[in-house]
């Protein structure tokens, strides 16, 4: 008997086709699966279904390019054995289940609040009283940083335990950015409102998260986007990758006080995001991606501008990067700093760029491709040292790879297809009732996962968002161990994780 159902990325299935197992069987199945290299957990969550909690576990199989989905029903406030005891990659998913539903995992090593959501199970948990790990010692001291940081960045608290200048342990406490976004997806009934919410999950990943949302919505509506929509979204996704990676290279240079790199990479980002504005009126792509339609067709004039822009960019970028990588003072700060080993990355289920820097060839664009990536053979950029320098090199190579793809796509711009002058009139009005859908998108940080469940009328019953940062924050905490505390900023920037994407 099959105790899971295999589905494809962006596929809608009847909710009842997902086998509902006993909790122990769900645990055995999924913890066994993730022990194999080609499997990892892309989402594991629960929602209220009657007076029970329905658990849904989604394990991606990168070799077969499909996703194994299984379910179970449990009572709230029940006491259960944890998946985490078998495989650490489930730890944050179970912290969330614990926080939201009071599920008590008997053998979870780190059962602490995840984000202090407004609808958490226990009001006694308050953000100002987070239970930090402590070592009582005369020799060691603690350093607390945040929630408000020195620069213009999002809030989060970092608590270091140090021996002199050396970091022994870092604990990261988040939740300050919690806006209740998953609940708003249900409360706001209009498609446009939900699209705006998707654009606001993480304002640095507008293309990534909004694409995941429209994929979910169009799949539920039985709508097949035509080529010009796929083109615009894929182009936006890769433009976003180029822009943010370039900005991150600038920030990495800032954090090692390399002024020339900081300024030049910073200024190289400007024409890229200005081009986005020329295309859609917004430097960060807000307003571009819409389910069932495209308000901003990609014209031949834009193509010409973009071609020129990429030619100029590539020359200046190469000159700057080649200079930077020859400087001993730069390399001394980047190499062997903030190492995450392959073993660590695999155990915590690291995804995206952070995982690939440690040797995990995990990339949704090749393992579960959608849109234009179904038509090319994407090879993930993989590095093996797991240090800040690996994460720097990955950015450089991914930028060049994206430019290469964009040049190919610009050779054949699909004609604007007025497939849907008025999306209300066709297809998008009605969503499939009692269904489940999952969408995976490789944003610039890594794998974004959105899941939706609909009710008898096709209305959203539950909406689940996972930003890659949920997996990767622990990678940052592990990377700084035994490093000097002065190297923390550069380690942090090399991951550039999302606070709001985690806190939702």
């Amino acid at each position, binding site marked *: 008997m099959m105790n899971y159902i295999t589905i494809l990325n962006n596929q809608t299935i009847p909710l009842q086709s997902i086998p509902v197992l006993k909790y122990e069987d769900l645990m055995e199945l999924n913890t066994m699966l993730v022990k194999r290299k080609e499997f990892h957990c892309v989402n594991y969550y629960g929602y209220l279904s009657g007076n029970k909690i329905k658990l849904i576990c989604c394990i991606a199989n990168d070799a077969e390019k499909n996703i194994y989905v299984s379910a179970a029903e449990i009572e709230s406030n029940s006491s259960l054995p944890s998946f985490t005891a078998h495989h650490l990659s489930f730890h944050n998913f179970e912290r969330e289940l614990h926080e939201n539903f009071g599920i008590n995992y008997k053998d979870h090593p780190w059962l602490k609040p995840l984000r202090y959501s407004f609808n958490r199970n226990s009001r006694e948990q308050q953000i100002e009283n987070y239970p930090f790990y402590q070592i009582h010692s005369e020799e060691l001291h603690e350093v607390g940083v945040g929630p408000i940081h020195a620069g213009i960045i999002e809030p989060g608290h970092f608590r270091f335990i140090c021996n002199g200048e050396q970091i022994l342990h870092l604990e990261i406490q988040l939740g300050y950015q919690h806006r209740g976004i998953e*609940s708003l997806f249900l409360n706001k009934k209009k498609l446009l409102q939900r699209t705006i919410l998707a654009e606001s999950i993480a304002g640095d990943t507008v293309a990534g998260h909004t694409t995941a949302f429209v994929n979910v919505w169009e799949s539920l509506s039985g709508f097949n986007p035509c080529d010009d929509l796929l083109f615009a979204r894929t182009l936006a996704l890769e433009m976003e990758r180029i822009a943010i990676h370039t900005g991150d290279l600038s920030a990495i240079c800032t954090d090692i006080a390399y002024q020339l790199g900081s300024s030049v990479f910073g200024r190289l980002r400007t024409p890229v995001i200005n081009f986005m504005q020329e295309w859609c009126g917004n*430097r960060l792509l807000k307003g571009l991606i819409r389910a069932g339609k495209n308000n901003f067709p990609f014209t031949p004039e834009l193509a010409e501008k973009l071609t020129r822009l990429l030619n100029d960019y590539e020359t200046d970028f190469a000159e700057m990067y080649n200079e930077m990588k020859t400087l001993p003072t730069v390399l001394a700060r980047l190499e062997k700093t903030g190492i995450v080993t392959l073993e660590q990355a695999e155990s915590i289920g690291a995804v995206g760029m952070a995982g690939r820097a440690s040797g995990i060839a995990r990339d949704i664009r090749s393992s579960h491709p959608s849109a234009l990536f179904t038509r090319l053979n994407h090879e993930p950029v993989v590095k093996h040292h797991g240090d800040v320098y690996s994460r720097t090199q990955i950015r450089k190579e991914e930028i060049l790879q994206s430019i290469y793809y964009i040049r190919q796509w610009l050779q054949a711009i699909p004609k604007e297809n007025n497939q849907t002058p008025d999306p209300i009139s066709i297809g998008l009005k009605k969503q499939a009732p009692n269904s489940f859908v999952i969408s995976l998108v490789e944003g610039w940080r890594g794998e974004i996962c959105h899941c939706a469940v609909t009710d008898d009328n096709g209305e959203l019953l539950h909406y689940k968002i996972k930003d890659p940062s949920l997996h990767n924050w622990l990678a940052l905490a592990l990377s700084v161990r035994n490093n000097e505390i002065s190297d923390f900023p550069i380690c942090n920037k090399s991951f550039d994780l999302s606070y709001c994407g985690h806190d939702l």
Partner: protein
Amino acid sequence: MLDNLKILLHQGKQYIPDVTQAEVPGVFRGRPVITNASVDEQALIDLCPTGAISAKPVCIDLGKCIFCGECAFAYPDKIRFTKDHKIATNDRNKLIIEEGSDSPVELNPGLIRKEIAEYFSGSLKLRQVCAGGDNSSELELNACGNVNFDMGRFGIEFVASPRHADGIVITGPITKNMAEPLQICYDAVPDPKIIILAGTDAISGGIFTDSPALDRSFPGKYQIDLYVPGNPVHPLTFINAVLELIRRRR
């Protein structure tokens, strides 16, 4: 050394010579203009995702508008977004754009506290507090200081500590979980101090307005010295607004 000079040379001049006259390239959704054309006003109101549009007369509240532009696509004869990026003011009512009006959004000089020009006209140090912001306005505030916009040339800079600051710039809809840190930060800024709300989320809550995860008591308690709409705020909007706020007036 020679390589460094070559790199510098290849960048050319990147700064915008006069930010007060600069135009944004391509299409941009800045100050809207609403004509007197008659449309189904209820349908127009229902279209807006954040309740920024009201009727009789038709108005768009830039403190609530998230600049998606969908109203202009649906009713091109009624609403058009211009490239005018100077949309900030210190008067909450001036953010409401009425039909038939095509005049710039300006500051209300009567509401500017006189110590602002006296203390800050040549130098303004700001502490940024992100309180549920999605990192888009934060990226743009960072961009204000880059080689392109170079806000530092006016003596306006973001600083690391509230103790060094003359005021705070809030982004995001202000979450419950950030309410206390925000208050502590504001209290740590020495007097006289200013408050700037940057981005539509900060001004009204934006798309998050009804969320039970917010605590918007802070902006209700104090005089707000500047409302800077945007989603995200454009660097030119921010820089020009701050320059207007702190300049000496006769």
